[in-house]
């Protein structure tokens, strides 16, 4: 499977049809989940009335914050061990998008927290704290890559940091959980299965899948842009060298 990553050309042909599908399917799922979440689904007084409708945006963003960082770490590992260029291009493309959804998760969580707990930032919320540190891990990764002078060094430094960050996420999560006492325990996927009523659950899963597909499409397009950029740079370098 890993050799599949090796060849940028093969990725370009694959992503040329896969990205549009992700966009279309993602848009469809998000639209359906929004329509359900905002129009159809009944208000749940126990969960604070209409405010819980924000979860159809907040929960997918929280999921993507964690999943995209882990994806970036896996891509970094593949690049670090097998030096497949496409894996590095993927890691570099995931970072800014992952940071965007992480920021979105923090923002919507803060807006959701104001009427629910009366504060814009709930320090005792373990999941929000973990997402906050994911955001810093993304910022550190992007800042480090930008600070390196050549593309190869940026890839190698970024890979090291992404792997160190990933290996620390469980420890950060555990320490934050220990630190926080008051928290709305994870109601979607828990040990004894989702506790939420099906009428909320399906739109939530749909929006989660929809956001993920949209995210995947955007990553692929950003990767295509990076590959074209590198090709242009290589041609310019050859032109300059005059051979």
């Amino acid at each position, binding site marked *: 499977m890993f050799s599949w990553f090796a060849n940028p050309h093969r990725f370009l042909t694959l992503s040329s049809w896969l990205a549009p599908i992700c966009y279309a399917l993602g848009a469809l799922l998000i639209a359906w989940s929004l329509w359900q979440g905002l129009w159809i689904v009944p208000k749940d007084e126990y969960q604070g009335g209409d405010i819980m409708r924000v979860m159809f945006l907040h929960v997918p963003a929280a999921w993507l914050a964690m999943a995209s960082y882990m994806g970036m770490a896996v891509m970094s590992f593949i690049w670090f061990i097998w030096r497949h260029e496409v894996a590095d291009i993927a890691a570099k493309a995931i970072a800014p998008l992952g940071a965007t959804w992480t920021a*979105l998760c923090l923002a919507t969580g803060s807006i959701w927290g104001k009427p629910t707990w009366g504060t814009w930032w709930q320090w005792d919320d373990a999941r929000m704290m973990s997402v906050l540190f994911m955001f810093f891990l993304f910022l550190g990764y992007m800042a480090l890559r930008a600070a390196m002078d050549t593309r190869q060094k940026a890839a190698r430094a970024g890979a090291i940091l992404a792997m160190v960050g990933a290996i620390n996420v469980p420890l950060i999560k555990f320490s934050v959980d220990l630190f926080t006492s008051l928290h709305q325990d994870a109601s979607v996927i828990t040990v004894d299965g989702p506790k939420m009523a099906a009428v909320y659950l399906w739109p939530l899963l749909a929006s989660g899948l929809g956001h993920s597909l949209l995210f995947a499409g955007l990553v692929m397009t950003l990767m295509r*842009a990076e590959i074209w950029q590198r090709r242009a740079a290589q041609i310019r370098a050859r032109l300059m060298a005059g051979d």
Partner: protein
Amino acid sequence: MLPEFDKNAGFIWASYALGAIMIGGAILTVMMKARLAKAELARTQVRAEEARQK
């Protein structure tokens, strides 16, 4: 046509507006970056072609 929400309507619309702005912004920048990169590559290939002919 828009749904009626209780007292927290402002917060709900604010969250979704923010979502639309950030995700919309991400989509626009990515599409623009892709289009620019593709155009740049085409331009460079043309220049390379001319250089080879000279």
